[in-house]
């Protein structure tokens, strides 16, 4: 069982600490996204990295179009990973859509999670009455149309050709463009699950202490959305980074590390 | 030879294909046992016979039942279910003799405790042979409940 899940999600464990820090990558890429962040925490924590099913080097055959129709399917996987590895008091670090996956898991199993660190979270990408999601219904319709017409931007899918020792972490030429590649059908389904969901209600049910890390400007998850998440989650802190884009762990890793460290220290003082 | 098979064995054939009825009758005639074969041509006749109703008020309880699945009114599965549910009937061996090779039919028949499932052979000689083997197995080799 445990081996099956470890293979399914391509789980990698490292670090010399005890308390687990679980990193969940966002839409489109894989666990390599965390490469600039993890070194800062490997001494004090047990680091658990994984790929969502359908991404990276996860078991593609485990991809179930029904299960992963909504992000709930990924939240179930997250809980399964914690249970299988017997992780407790988890510090969860999730990027983008994985923030919400973490929220769903923490609402269902608050016993598993100590803290949630959410980078660029958005519970709902579409504007609603009294809510700014960043995208108009037109944008979403356009997105769906693009997905349906199998627009080639989404399917510039190059099967990764990995030469040499697959155990060895290499970013050689042969891995070019493969780090973010995804089977187009899975990419479409993942996009639907990510961008069409509305999980605003779930935020209010979070009981774990939470840190929200927000970029500015972020066209995918704008500042208003980050503020909304902050207001909705009862025990939450909010950090606005001086960095644009949606992937601060790649563009401004030192700021992300500093925010997380400050947050974790603060918390341990409280304890 | 055992005493009980010296008496005439009562056989109920539930079948609606006239050709198959005649061939089965011929086969039993050819066989070495004394048999009396009664024919029910649809599900209702079969139940009437077993419960000694309507036209079959004088029917004798059969020692062996040959049952086709695709028959009018009540199909073979329903008849089998009824027989195996009914205390006075469930000891009677029921041999399904059907053209259906559908897995679901076979599965369902065994789930409902049919005593064996035989696919009707397409060739005439094999068909007669199958009936003779049924007769030999169930009337000679097997000891039936009284």
């Amino acid at each position, binding site marked *: 069982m445990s081996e099956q899940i470890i293979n399914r999600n391509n789980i990698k464990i490292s670090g010399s600490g005890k308390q687990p820090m679980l990193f969940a990558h*966002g*839409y*489109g*890429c894989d666990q*390599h*996204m965390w*490469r600039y962040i993890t070194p800062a925490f490997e001494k004090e924590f047990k680091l658990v990295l994984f790929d969502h099913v359908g991404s990276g080097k996860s078991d593609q055959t485990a991809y179930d179009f029904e299960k992963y129709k909504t992000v709930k399917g990924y939240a179930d996987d997250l809980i399964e990973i914690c249970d299988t590895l017997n992780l407790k008091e988890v510090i969860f670090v999730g990027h*983008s859509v994985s923030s919400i996956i973490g929220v769903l898991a923490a609402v269902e199993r608050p016993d598993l999670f100590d803290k949630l660190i959410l980078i660029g979270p958005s519970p709902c990408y579409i504007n609603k009455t009294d809510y700014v999601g960043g*995208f108009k219904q037109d*944008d*979403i319709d*356009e*997105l769906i149309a*693009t*997905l349906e017409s*199998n*627009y*080639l*931007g*989404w399917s*510039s899918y190059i099967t990764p050709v990995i030469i040499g020792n697959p155990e060895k972490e290499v*970013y050689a030429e042969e*891995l*070019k*463009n493969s*780090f*973010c590649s995804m089977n187009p059908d899975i990419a479409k389904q993942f*996009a639907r699950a990510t*961008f069409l969901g509305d999980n605003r209600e779930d935020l209010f049910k979070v009981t774990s202490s939470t840190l929200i890390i927000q970029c500015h*400007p972020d*066209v*995918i998850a704008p500042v208003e959305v980050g503020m909304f998440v902050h207001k909705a989650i009862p025990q939450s802190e909010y950090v606005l980074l001086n960095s*644009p*884009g*949606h*992937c601060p762990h*790649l*563009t401004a890793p030192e700021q992300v590390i500093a925010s997380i460290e400050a947050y974790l220290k603060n918390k341990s003082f409280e304890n | 030879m055992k005493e009980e098979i010296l008496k005439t064995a009562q056989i109920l054939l539930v079948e*609606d*294909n*006239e*050709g*198959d009825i*005649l*061939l089965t009758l*011929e086969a039993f005639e050819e066989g070495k046992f004394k048999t009396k074969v009664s024919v029910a041509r649809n599900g209702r006749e079969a139940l009437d016979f077993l419960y000694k109703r309507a036209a079959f008020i004088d029917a004798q309880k059969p020692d062996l039942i040959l049952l086709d699945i*695709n*028959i*009018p009114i009540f*199909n073979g599965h329903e008849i089998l279910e009824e027989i195996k549910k009914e205390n006075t009937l469930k000891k009677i061996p029921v041999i399904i003799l059907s*053209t259906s090779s559908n897995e*679901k039919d076979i599965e369902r028949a065994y789930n409902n405790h049919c005593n064996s499932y035989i696919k*009707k052979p*397409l*060739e*005439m000689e094999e*068909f*007669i042979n199958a009936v003779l083997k049924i007769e030999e197995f169930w009337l000679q080799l097997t000891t039936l409940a009284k």
Partner: protein
Amino acid sequence: MKTKLIIEDAEDLYQNAPFGYLTVQSDGLIININSTLLHWLGYERQEIEFQKSFQDLLIMGDKIYYETHIMPMLLVQNEIAEINIQLKGKGLIRLPVLINAKRIVDSTNQESFFRFSLLDITQRRKYELELMKARKEAETTVQQLKEIKQDLEQFAYVVAHDLKTPLRSIKGLLSIIKNKGDKMDNTKKQEYFNVVINAADDMYKLIDSLLEYARTGSVQEEMQEVTVSGIFKTQLNFFEQEIKKLGGQIETHSTIKYITVYPVLFQQVLMNLISNAIKYRSETPPIIQVTCKDQKGYTLFSVTDNGMGIPTDRFEAVFKLFRSLNPNNDSNGIGLAICKKIIELHGGTIWLESEIGKGTTFYFTIRKD
């Protein structure tokens, strides 16, 4: 010689290269763009440089793709190649491009910049769309061929199986008559001969149905506009007597006046469905309803009965050749397969809802155009 050198200077090579070039900051703000790309997009330089970010030129799908794929890849790998996206130009200009990009680090302040080169692939995109269309068509053809192959296998099966059943009776009974010769009394002989003749008739019927099914594909008649009421009237004339005799009734209802169909074939569908409703009736007298109404570009028909019902696991099988539910009940499992074929000729689909003991509704659509 001198003019050539001026034209080939670096600035001109950049501005007027047959390639689009632009440079962005890490937040996507465009700080440099070449004339070729400006021209392609229909913008003036001052509308773009330090005014728009690369993301502003993208539709939502590509925007997400940029933030979640292109940027992360550039930051991890420092370069990307052959990414296919579409740019929004001024007004309705849409430009499919293939982009390559490279990360450049300013040695004075370590700031990152990203240089993009963009290749116009409008022609290639058209070609790709055609390829995609062709591929889809090929897939449909393969699917059709698969179905034809299955049909053929069913044909083979029926020859091997369904025709052998009556043949077994014929050969079996005739052999018995021959072997017994004079030992057989005359009445019994007559009875056997009758069964043999009936079995031979069954074979004829089966062969006729097979031929009918095979012919259904090649339509001879013309599409015609006919009234629904006329169609229904024909059916009522044909069935009413029989249904009344059984103590039942048949009703028709339509909110549509005209349909365009192959009239003879279409009548055959209703005829098959209604006669099935009668054939597979329950203990109670048959009550049959036939309706017709509009449904988004299609006309929807339904035939509802209060008959025996069909088990859920047979819903699809009933439309397949020779999968009759009740082969001995004067049916050979071809009627519904023919209905399906005819409905598909009309650009529609056929399906059913049913509950054991309660009844069945067959639905089918035909395309309006």
